[in-house]
């Protein structure tokens, strides 16, 4: 390294130092520690005792809670395509030169700025089986009333319904993506006689696929971390139907004080997240289109 190289590297490191220090203290150390704890019997009050893979095998054998929480979480992936369709649809409606569009944009984004605890409290009330607004709508539409959060069959769809209300972030991202699609592509498609659906299928979707890809990955990660809503609204019930992965992990750590098991669960979560992301990533070669070839 020449002296000027060295000087530049030192300057660069000084600028990134706040993040780098934080990375070492709040990421590298905890990663190593949690991996070690995951191999230990660790109940907080007594020091960790090494037991090898015991926590992992115990988890994988635990069909009542662990596997239940995995399956419950897997069910929530239904939400990803629904959220995609809803937010892309709204983004396309918003991507027009119409008066008052900023007003509509604000309305759709608004639910996303509500504190999760408050929206959880609100939705418990909306979904109330006897006096809730939603069952009243069902009655008006001559549909059967549902038990929502109190019914093991409908508890997970309740959460999906509530989450679809907060798709604002996705809408804004898709809207920005749509605004980046060059107008001349649509003009060319129209000259070739493409109808509205064909324009959507062959221009909009391919041009937007990197954004969809990004959102899908964030959605996968977010689904595995689903916590506050269940903690506030159902705490896993009824009949463990909303015992989601992150909730069970939290209970292990802070209610049962089984730190070893909780750390093992965190690492399994990491592996599951990476696996799911890898699947999305792997499949992306087939459907994600990058302008100007691979990036």
């Amino acid at each position, binding site marked *: *390294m020449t002296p000027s190289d060295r000087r*530049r590297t030192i*300057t*660069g490191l*000084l*600028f*990134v*130092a*706040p*993040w*780098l*220090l*934080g*990375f070492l203290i*709040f*990421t590298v*150390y*905890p990663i190593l*520690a*949690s991996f070690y*704890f995951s191999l230990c019997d660790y109940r907080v009050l007594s020091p960790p005792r090494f037991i090898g893979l015991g926590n992992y095998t115990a988890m994988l054998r635990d069909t009542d809670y662990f596997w239940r929480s995995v399956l419950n979480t897997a069910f929530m992936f239904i939400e990803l395509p629904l959220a995609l369709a809803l937010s892309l649809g709204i983004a396309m409606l918003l991507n*027009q030169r*119409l008066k008052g569009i900023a007003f509509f944009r*604000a*309305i*759709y984004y608004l*639910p996303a*700025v509500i*504190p*999760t*605890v*408050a*929206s959880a*409290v*609100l939705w418990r*009330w909306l979904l109330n089986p*006897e006096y809730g*607004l939603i069952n*009243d709508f069902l009655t008006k539409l001559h549909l059967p009333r549902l038990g929502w959060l109190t019914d093991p069959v409908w508890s997970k769809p309740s959460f999906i319904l509530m989450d679809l*209300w907060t798709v604002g*972030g996705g809408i*804004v*991202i898709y809207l*920005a*993506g749509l605004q980046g699609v060059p107008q001349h592509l649509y003009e060319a498609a129209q000259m070739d006689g493409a109808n509205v659906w064909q324009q959507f299928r062959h221009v909009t979707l391919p041009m937007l696929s*990197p954004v969809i890809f*990004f959102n899908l990955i964030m959605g996968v990660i977010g689904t595995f971390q689903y916590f*506050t809503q269940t903690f*506030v609204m159902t705490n896993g019930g009824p009949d463990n139907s909303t015992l989601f992965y992150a909730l069970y992990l939290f209970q292990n*750590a802070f209610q049962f004080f089984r*730190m070893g098991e*909780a*750390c093992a669960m*965190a*690492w399994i*979560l*990491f592996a599951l*997240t*990476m696996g799911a*992301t890898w699947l999305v990533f792997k499949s992306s070669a087939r459907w994600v289109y990058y302008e100007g070839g691979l990036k």
Partner: protein
Amino acid sequence: MRKFLSYAALSALGVLFLLPFAWMVVTSLKADAQVMTPVPEWIPRPLVWENYTKALQSFPFLRYLGNTLVICALAVIGTVISCALPAYGFARLRWRGRDALFFIMLSTLMLPSQVTLLPTFLLFRWLGWTDTIAPLTVPAFFGSAFSIFLLRQFFLTIPAELSDAARIDGCNEWMIFWRVVAPLAKPALATVALFSFTSAWMDFMGPLIYLNDDNKYTLALGLLSFLGRYTQSFNLLMAASTLITIPPVVIFLLAQRAFLRGIALTGLKG
């Protein structure tokens, strides 16, 4: 015709999106007897503003507001400083190892927070920081990958000629950051400040695991304990929820552009 259909669709969906809000406010103004009626009633008769005073008195709202604001303020200051500097280092300087570190930083975005949560919790406990605001504020001073990434994307759009001109005038990197890039990046810095404010305001798990003394609760946590005590008083619950929803909504409406630009910036260049 097409315009008309678009307006119709936007309005219909918009009403659906607004309805839960409206119902929250309507319920918060109802007398006890009017809350649970077989058919929901949309007009509170009489208007019971006392629900708000009752909600304010039945949990120490102002103290929790104060606690929350202190945490939010420290989080905002910490995040802006500790993200702007690394973002400058990643965006505007060329040095050995920069790209590798940047890649590592981006990959931490994929790391589930649960992996680091428990050792971090134990670390703070060992330091004796539980029941203080330190675990909720100190980490903010050590950069967040998401905000650094957002700022870097913005810094990249500032023409390099401006830095070069300053360099010729004898400015060092620190002065260029402070006098050239930071002033031009005010909109992006405002976006990061807004994001860190709202995420500190909404943070639930942090206060939940670190704060035990209910004098130190934040609003989000206070609302939870309020919920525990008034499970069925939906008018009071909705009044309390409305109160904690108002600040982020007002901030969003005032600073809409900064919010939306920030989200678009991170989503697109991902």
